[in-house]
């Protein structure tokens, strides 16, 4: 008898567990119900780290996309409407695939991909198998797109996933563009690099920087690494660069580690020129950061929240009003993604009742032929590789603000 009661209780508990497992962690936003014309809304889904250590990127992207969706729905009351839903993956590949499956169950027709690269590699495979159109705002690794040869070995490790596109620069472009820029502007004679070797973003940029630097004959005197576990103490890396006499340090990494590097370099009295990539964007937004430490830092980035053009000003204002912080590049990329998809949907004459597969075919041909103007660049184009062509802007930090370098 006791056993049976126990079994029943267990069954009940497990059922409750199953039920409560659903529906958690999602931020669903319904489009205002379209009135009059009866046009249904097209379902766009996205996956990103809304919690955990990388939440700053996922939340920024989700918010940027949300603003774009609101603007589009308000501006086109009689046109195609959008429903947007972001699922959390906590920057974990396995959770990202689960989140993708949740979105598929919801009836997603177009996928905004994963926000970060490691989960992006996993979800892009799934979306490729299911033939769902995939445009990621910020998963910049070449492994997300596939079909790109490893610069060190020259072999293609992951085949091209033909329905996957990126809004951000693909990593190698940033690395080689940085090396080119440093050479052209004659910024340094002895160069040190510090990169994060457990991160595809950082290593991807470093590898292409290294290849291009060799080609251009840049004098790289010190290369040191760090990982997620050692990203607090940079005394070894900085001493190495300092002892090698480096006058420019290239930092292909996100700004959180860079902020510590600037602080520690300052404490040890080392003041080279610093050169960063788009992940450096956000350093001025760190609460309490002494911006004088970042004075003179150069970076290549597609988005600048201080830009003077109308579109950027409006976006920054809306974002600040709604979320009381300055949007970073991830928010701008996701905002552009939603607009680019919407533009392509309209051009291809897609309606909300079409299947994800049909939409994918049309969007693929639309994306490889269209030219898109957004916050993160003018005249963006995509080719069959899925990578975007847009020109990075050289920025330098002066008096606590980004200023164009050219």
């Amino acid at each position, binding site marked *: 008898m006791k056993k049976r009661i126990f079994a029943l209780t267990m069954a009940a508990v497990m059922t409750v567990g199953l039920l409560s497992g659903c529906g958690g962690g999602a931020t669903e936003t319904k489009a205002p119900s379209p009135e009059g014309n009866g046009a249904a809304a097209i379902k766009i889904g996205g996956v990103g780290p809304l*919690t*955990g*250590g990388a*939440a*700053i990127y996922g*939340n920024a992207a989700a918010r940027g996309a949300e603003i774009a969706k609101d603007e589009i729905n308000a501006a086109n009351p009689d046109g195609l409407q959008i429903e947007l839903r972001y699922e959390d993956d906590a920057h974990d590949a396995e959770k990202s695939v689960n989140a993708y499956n949740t979105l598929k169950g919801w009836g997603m027709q177009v996928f905004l991909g994963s926000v970060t690269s490691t989960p992006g590699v996993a979800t892009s495979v799934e979306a490729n198998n299911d033939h769902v159109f995939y445009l990621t705002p910020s998963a910049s690794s070449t492994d997300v797109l596939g079909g790109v040869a490893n610069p060190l070995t020259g072999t293609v490790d992951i085949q091209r996933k033909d329905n996957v596109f990126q809004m951000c620069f693909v990593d190698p472009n940033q690395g080689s563009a940085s090396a080119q820029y440093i050479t052209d502007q004659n910024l340094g004679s002895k160069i040190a690099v510090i990169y994060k*070797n457990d991160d595809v973003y950082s290593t991807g940029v470093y590898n292409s920087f290294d290849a291009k630097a060799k080609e251009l004959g840049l004098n790289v005197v010190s290369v*040191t*690494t*760090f*990982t*997620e*576990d*050692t990203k*607090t*103490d940079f*005394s*070894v*890396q900085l*001493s*190495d660069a300092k*002892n090698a006499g480096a006058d420019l340090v290239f930092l292909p990494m996100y*700004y*959180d580690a860079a*902020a*510590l590097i600037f*602080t520690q370099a300052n*404490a*040890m*009295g080392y003041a080279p020129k610093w050169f960063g990539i788009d992940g450096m964007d956000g350093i001025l*937004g*760190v*609460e*309490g*950061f*002494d911006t004088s430490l970042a004075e003179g830092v150069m970076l290549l980035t597609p988005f600048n929240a201080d830009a003077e053009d109308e579109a950027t000003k409006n976006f920054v204002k809306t974002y600040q009003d709604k979320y009381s*912080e300055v949007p970073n590049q991830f928010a701008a990329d996701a905002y552009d993604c939603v607009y680019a998809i919407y533009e392509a949907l309209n051009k291809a004459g897609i309606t909300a009742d079409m299947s994800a597969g049909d939409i994918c075919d049309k969007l693929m041909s639309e994306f490889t032929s269209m030219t898109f103007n957004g916050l993160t660049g003018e005249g963006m184009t995509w080719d069959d590789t899925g990578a975007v062509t847009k020109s990075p802007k050289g920025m330098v930090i002066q008096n606590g603000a980004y200023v164009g370098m050219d």
Partner: protein
Amino acid sequence: MVIFLSRLINGISLGSVYAIIALGYTMVYGIAKMLNFAHGDVIMVGAYVCFFAVANYSLPPLVGVLLAMVVCTVLGIVIERLAYKPLRQAPSLAVLITAIGVSYFLQNGAQLLWGSNNKMFPVFLNGDALSLMDGELRVSVATVVNVVACVAIMLVLSWFTGKTKMGKAMRACSEDKGAAQLMGINVDTTISMTFAIGSALAAVAGVLYMSSYPILVPTTGSMPGIKAFTAAVFGGIGSIPGALLGGLLLGVIEIFAGGYISTQLQNAIVFAVLIVVLLVKPSGLLGKQIREKV
């Protein structure tokens, strides 16, 4: 020579941070015989409290530290009451898993309350205490404060557990809870007290850790927590002087491994050394050999 000395100083500076966290770890382990994996996250909470006190309410740093200690002490007692006390008779694995759960709870709670954005901790221990050989060798104020705080905390803790009545009660509980109860010791109060002290230490550790590495996020506590746990095992978990020794050695080995061998293999070398030490001396450098009573 200059490079060697400056690496040694960097190592001690990093090690003193590990040591100060390891002291709290080892104290709770030594008394309650449980690995409090949430210790690192209590550090994070302490750092946030101090951050808001100093940066937002412009209180003097010392008041910020005291406030952080009070908040963390209360937090420690609450965690112990809600999460660990109901499991007093449960197998230690259940308590371990609960501690991991508490750790995630604190991290995500902090993110919900304070957001996931990086915050730069206000540096109030800046500048150099010593500058030798034309500025080639610098010892920062933060390092000196860390080392002094470590030694002071170690001495006070050793005195407390060895000489005071409460300390003796703690050691009695650690040896045999049942017998301690028969002797008239309130086991629950004693263990709560352990957590209170451990958490207050975590607040101090959080502020000192932040003074050296000032980027504050909700996951700030997790990695130093694990490193400090390693340091505590290295020195012999449960041993208070061992935590200090383990922390300092771990920091020095980490910096030397990165500086002389490879930054790629930094952590691998640190843990390889740990494995070798544990193979030779399973209870850690200063750990007591405990014989199982039959």
